[in-house]
């Protein structure tokens, strides 16, 4: 079967190429369906409890996706007639933002005051054209003393202000809605700057973040994929010294990427930040198959074998190991299906498919192309062989030091693994080159952080929010929250009620208190609500029958652990002070704060399943339980060590890194497979003793291993340059893990083999087919 396939490929290369091209073109047609979903919600599965809580809260109140125009007048003062006029114009224009439902700014703030029995509710800045310098101190005084505004819409020093646009994305066409909003926002920004060069503008908010997910990932693919192609080209030409082989490899890579992405489009996948790295990962992984086939083929040709025969031999020799490593790699990536976060499941499935496609192309299209391309072999002796030989000698000589030494190093690195802290701060998903990150950092320094928590308090009774006891609880909560060191701002009903009570008593400051009568509070609110304009109602903080209220707290930017700690602190406050109410806390930040932990738990299971599957396959392929078990150590240790090293690099792990262990498992197993199978080949078929078998293994696969590792590390290091930190971290840790795996396979595994596989192969060998290897005393060293 296999032989027939190989012969067919080599006898009818044109047909194979044509069929493949047809297949690739057919797949590529699906790529038009492949669109980028930039909503942060894609990171959460539908059953995610934090997402469910948040969505339910959004249905009860109103949605809170937003765009923040951060305005900083260069003269450092928001309160000048000219600046206020510009802000008012921007506020009006902001109603034109697609899907906008609310605009909050310093100018349209609904200021209420009273004169005798007249209650005024109107825009703080009603007609900016008529403002004079004399009006400024009064307006500033009102604004920076208003708890709803200060630290949210205006800085206490009044040097930075925000125009906040709330948008309600219908979610009908999630692919186009956000770019639609952003293009309008950017056009407004450009126009604003043109008209007001003395005011600088930055853009933040959830919508800008969503958009950055897409832009960051797509610009990555536009820059990183070409870089990666360059690295592969250069690496192959330098290391394998073949233009034809490099050309054929590049074709394989392109076809693999195109058909993977095309098939993903056909089957209804969409792109997200993590899954958009599929091309670069597939690119990196597809190279390895080609390298193995090329290396063997050149080796044969150098031995004088004719080209076609050399290709056939190479296929025969490599078919099983390439198939095996492709399957294990695919299993590793498929373990991502255990992830709690759908984009990573997609990534796993797409890359797994890509790896298998690469395998198929490598044994069909690749040899077909090679048979047609001119290939010449120079009978050069390469220095690398000597390096491997020297390394083998070094390992054999120092095995007694290497085993305990490497063990000690491995253990001492691994102990740092638990020292990593959990953190998913979506602002920090972007590096400081991304404008969204810069704007948000600026906002954090000058106004407030972007970490919010929405606290919904349910009284269980219609109009229950007017109950003085409830209002007092909300008032206490608000004060308590403001006293927390992490808090930047609290938006609370109690502030509005206090202000109304004051207004109703001739603006007497001593009435800035909560009314102790339920009907009074209800009637104040009725009056106030009747006076509010379109879009500035209280529906964003009260539910429809006024049985529950939503308090929104904004904190400085916090780590996941800190956020979960505050969340618990708030629940504890309610338990101690207002236990009669039903409380829900939700926000996008909390969703991200919890997902790292949830994902790590689910990925532990996924990685374990993958490990068991891969070990079974290894044991079966190596025909030995014992070597299957031995292989566990070099397969597990690198990921653990990688996380240990990570503690010194970053020390924070989250969503993206929690999938690295499963992902790398399938890749690093390849090294072990190649090394062990050559070792066993030497032991069983060539009757070599462990030392000689180690030397044989180094000699035969050492070079291929380090070249593929080089390509893999280079590939994932390129990914590590991403401006999207989620992908960059994933790339960096994967690269580290793969590099560690090679070191472990070169320095630890041989020493371990020589220790455990002493001179008693036949007695410890579970599988009896190696009886012929039972003559380790007759040492036959390879020259």
């Amino acid at each position, binding site marked *: 079967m296999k032989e027939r396939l190989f012969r067919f490929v080599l006898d009818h290369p044109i047909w194979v190429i044509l069929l493949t091209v047809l297949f690739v073109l057919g797949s590529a047609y699906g790529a038009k369906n492949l669109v980028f979903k930039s909503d942060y919600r894609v990171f959460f599965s539908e059953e995610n409890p934090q997402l469910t809580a948040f969505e339910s809260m959004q249905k*009860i109140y109103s949605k809170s996706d937003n765009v923040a125009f951060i305005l900083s007048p260069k003269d450092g003062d928001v309160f000048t007639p000219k600046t206020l006029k510009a802000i008012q114009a921007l506020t009006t224009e902001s109603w034109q933002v697609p899907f906008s439902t609310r605009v909050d700014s310093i100018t349209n703030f609904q200021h209420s005051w009273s004169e005798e029995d007249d*209650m005024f509710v109107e825009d703080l800045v009603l007609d900016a054209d008529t403002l004079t310098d004399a009006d400024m101190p009064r307006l500033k005084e009102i604004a920076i003393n208003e708890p709803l505004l200060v630290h949210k819409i205006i800085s206490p020093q009044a040097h930075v202000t925000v125009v906040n646009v709330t948008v309600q994305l219908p979610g009908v066409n999630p692919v186009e809605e956000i770019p639609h909003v952003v293009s309008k926002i950017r056009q407004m920004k450009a126009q604003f700057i043109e008209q007001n060069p003395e005011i600088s503008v930055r853009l933040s908010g959830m919508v800008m973040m969503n958009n950055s997910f897409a832009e960051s990932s797509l610009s990555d693919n536009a820059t990183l994929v070409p870089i990666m192609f360059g690295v592969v080209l250069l690496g192959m030409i330098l290391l394998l010294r073949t233009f034809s082989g490099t050309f054929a490899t590049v074709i394989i890579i392109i076809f693999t990427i195109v058909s993977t992405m095309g098939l993903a489009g056909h089957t209804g996948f969409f792109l997200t930040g993590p899954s958009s790295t599929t091309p670069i990962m597939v690119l990196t992984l597809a190279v390895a198959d080609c390298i193995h086939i090329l290396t063997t083929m050149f080796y044969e040709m150098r031995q004088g074998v004719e080209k076609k025969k050399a290709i056939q031999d190479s296929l025969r020799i490599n078919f099983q190991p390439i198939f095996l490593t492709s399957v294990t790699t695919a299993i590793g990536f498929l373990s991502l299906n255990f992830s709690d976060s759908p984009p990573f499941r997609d990534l796993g499935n797409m890359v797994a498919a890509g790896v298998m496609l690469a395998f198929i192309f490598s044994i069909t299209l690749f040899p077909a192309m090679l048979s047609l391309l001119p290939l010449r072999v120079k009978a050069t002796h390469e220095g690398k062989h000597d390096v491997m030989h020297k390394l083998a000698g070094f390992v054999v000589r120092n095995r007694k030091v290497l085993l305990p030494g490497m063990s000690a190093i491995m253990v001492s690195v691994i102990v740092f693994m638990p020292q990593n802290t959990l953190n998913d701060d979506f602002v920090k998903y972007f590096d400081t080159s991304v404008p969204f990150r810069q704007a948000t950092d600026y906002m954090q320094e000058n106004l407030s952080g972007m970490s919010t928590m929405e606290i919904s308090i349910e009284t269980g009774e219609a109009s229950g929010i007017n109950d003085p006891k409830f209002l007092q609880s909300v008032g206490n909560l608000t004060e308590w929250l403001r006293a927390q060191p992490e808090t930047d701002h609290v938006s609370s009903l109690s502030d509005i009620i206090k202000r109304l009570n004051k207004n109703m008593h001739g603006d007497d400051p001593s009435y800035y208190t909560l009314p102790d009568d339920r009907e009074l509070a209800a009637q104040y609110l009725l009056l106030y609500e009747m006076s509010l304009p379109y879009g*500035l109602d209280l529906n964003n903080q009260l539910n429809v029958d006024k049985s529950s209220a939503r308090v929104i707290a904004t904190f400085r930017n916090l780590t996941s652990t800190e956020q979960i700690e505050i969340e618990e602190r708030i629940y504890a406050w309610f338990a101690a002070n207002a236990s009669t109410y039903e409380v829900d806390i939700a926000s996008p930040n909390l969703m991200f704060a919890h997902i790292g932990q949830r994902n790590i738990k689910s990925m532990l299971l996924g990685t374990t399943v993958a490990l068991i599957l891969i070990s079974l396959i290894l044991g079966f392929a190596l025909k030995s339980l014992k070597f299957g078990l031995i292989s566990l150590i070099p397969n597990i240790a690198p990921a653990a060590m990688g996380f240990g090293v990570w503690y010194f690099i970053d020390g924070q792990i989250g969503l993206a890194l929690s999938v690295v262990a499963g992902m790398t498992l399938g890749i690093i197993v390849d090294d072990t497979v190649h090394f062990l199978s050559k070792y066993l080949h030497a032991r069983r078929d060539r009757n070599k003793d462990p030392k000689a078998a180690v030397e044989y293994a180094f000699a035969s696969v050492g070079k291929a291993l380090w070249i593929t590792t080089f390509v893999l590390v280079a590939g994932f290091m390129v990914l590590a340059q991403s401006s999207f930190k989620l992908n960059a971290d994933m790339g960096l840790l994967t690269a580290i893990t793969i590099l560690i795996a090679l070191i472990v396979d070169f320095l630890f595994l041989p020493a371990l083999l020589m220790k455990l596989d002493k001179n008693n192969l036949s007695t410890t060998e579970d599988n009896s087919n190696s009886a012929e290897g039972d003559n380790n005393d007759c040492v036959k060293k390879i020259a």
Partner: protein
Amino acid sequence: MTVLKKSLNSLVVLGLMTAPLIASAETAEEKGTRIAIEAKASDKGWQDMQTSMNMILRNKEGQESIRDIRLKSLEIENDGDKSLSVFDKPKDVKGTAFLSFSHAVGADDQWLYLPKLKRVKRIASRNKSGPFMGSEFSYEDLSSFEVEKYTYKFLRDEPCEGGTCYVVEQYPVDKNSGYTRRVAWLDQAEYRPWKIEFFDRKNTPLKTLTYHEYNEYEGKHWRPNLMKMVNHQSGKSTDLTYSDYQFKTGLDDNDFNKNTLKRAR
């Protein structure tokens, strides 16, 4: 303003008489305005009215809330109507009464009596576009229809529940309005509105109002028993049910002032 309106009226009368002759010369804007004037004229003379309103508010989660209001209105010639609303539900605003002199152009005069505070407060606000008692109706949607509140453009004739409808676009004159335009369906026989579509400030569909169960009172005044407002952006909706319509009950200006507001129960 009144002068203009009167001359407009006479123009319309003239227009009606000569309609067959100059129909082709009438622009869509003129036709839209004519329909509005005719609609207003057809309902003229109801003098005063009393009715009970019940509102059911629903959010996306299906939660409901109820408002009960008693309403008295007085027809004012050449200006907006006067109205007095007394709130019965929710319980904790029971007895709160709202007096409004609506004006065709400019801010309305509004007073609210807060029974707990035992005081009448004048609401000095130009905002008519916010939600009325948390519902999907704004005060702007509920106040009386006046020709001068909009400019018009006739779009087309279209079959509708009330037979054949004029479909007319209406552009609010008030710059504080929450809408860029409304599209109204009025039947040609009685000028009853059957549907109004509201477009928000960025001209995207915001709400749809439909009218149901019309009854005729006093031989010419058609009133719906049910008005349904659906907000397409928030998924919230409000059903407004009227009952016990009474016309020409003998109310006059003296029933609509700050003192009657205090006494209204």
